[in-house]
């Protein structure tokens, strides 16, 4: 069965015309309680650290978990993210929203890890055939995230932050050091690519 056929069955039918980029966001801990926790983290409260780790790690893990990565790779990256957040915690100001700060640090940890892998990979000498890449990732029918992971990295991170984490355009712009307009443009391109992938999937 094609992907969009399943989509049509799964999705709740509605004919609204709202902008997909400005769509509804999933529930998350309130911004004010997150800020409060972060301030307590800066003051050295261990309970605040535990609560922050518990409430933000699932979204961060989803953000870190890119195409071709195993869960253990993603968990290693998540640990790197938290260590960087820990080292940079004094740069958070309580007057600013927390999620752009957290995801800006996570984004650069992810970029650095990618560049480091690429650099080390380019120095390796090929002595045998590469393993089948398909063995690293489940088949595309399993998860809409597999489609999202096929997007260019800039579009992928914008879609994950906007739609999976539930951040606003301005928050994503802060996290990606860009403007709200640029984020909106990337999201529109991502949706166009997802539509094409869905159409291609249904024709198989």
């Amino acid at each position, binding site marked *: 069965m094609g992907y969009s056929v399943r989509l049509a069955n799964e*999705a709740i039918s509605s004919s*609204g015309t709202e902008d*997909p980029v400005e*769509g509804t966001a999933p529930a998350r801990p309130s911004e004010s309680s997150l800020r409060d926790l972060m301030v307590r983290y800066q003051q050295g409260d261990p309970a605040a650290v535990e609560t922050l780790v518990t409430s933000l790690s699932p979204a961060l893990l989803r953000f870190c978990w890119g195409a071709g990565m195993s869960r253990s790779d993603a968990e290693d990256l998540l640990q790197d993210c*938290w260590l960087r957040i820990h080292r940079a915690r004094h740069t958070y*100001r309580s007057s600013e*929203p927390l999620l*752009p700060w957290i995801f800006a640090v996570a984004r650069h940890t992810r970029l650095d890890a990618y560049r480091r892998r690429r650099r080390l990979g380019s120095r390796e000498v090929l002595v045998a055939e590469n393993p089948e890449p398909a063995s690293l990732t489940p088949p595309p029918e399993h998860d809409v995230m597999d489609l999202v992971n096929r997007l260019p990295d800039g579009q992928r991170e914008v879609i994950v932050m906007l*739609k999976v984490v539930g951040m606003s355009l301005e928050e994503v712009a802060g996290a990606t050091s860009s403007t709200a307009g640029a984020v909106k443009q990337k999201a529109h391109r991502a949706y166009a690519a997802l539509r094409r992938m869905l159409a291609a999937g249904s024709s198989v």
Partner: protein
Amino acid sequence: MAELHLPDTQIDEKIDRLLELVAASELSPELRRKLNGALGASLQPVKPLPSVRVLMVQFGSVFLLFAAVLIATMGIAGFRTLQAWQALGIVAILAVGVSLLSLALAWQVCPGSLQKIPPVLSWASYGIGFLTGAALLFPWRQSAGFFSQGWPCLLIGSAVAIPGGVLFWLLTRRGVPLSTVTFGGTLGAIAGLMGITVLQFRCIHQDAAHVIVWHGGVLLASVVAGVLIACVLERTVRSTPQ
């Protein structure tokens, strides 16, 4: 397959719904314990950085102070040769540069800041603004000593930019610039502006071609040097095994 002919808005809504249904990737209790242990082990209270606005004012004030000391040391012979409107114009151009680049630097050392002007655009727009201002403010004269008068300016400007860059690097040590290369470029730009500022007061060859090529060249050389040093540092850090 009717869904293939749905309008884009309806397909987008379906994509939205599916993305909202994406399950959060829960942490294993072991990983959560590991994270809490690692973070809790070095949990001292920290003093937060001041706001972007305060940082911008701090950077601008230090720039003015350092430039004033250098100008007092190196003289204002060039500034004395300017007409009042030329002096006002060049001071305004330098002031805009200090504000713009201090703001860009403050944004860069604070992760998650909503940067209304991308860093590369701030260097480029200031460079173009300075060159345009110089072309409009100063007369175009034929000069026999274009190179012989120009090289010393480029060298003096660069010599001033080096301690300027080191000073701003020390000032931003508490911040966490996430992109080393753009941070290096911005640091180079503000250091180059320090060089230009001193030259605009000191240099007696205040004609358009000289200012554009030799004074503007200090800004360009500083940005390029900042980006290159940052690239080398980044490569060194990245190639070091963790």
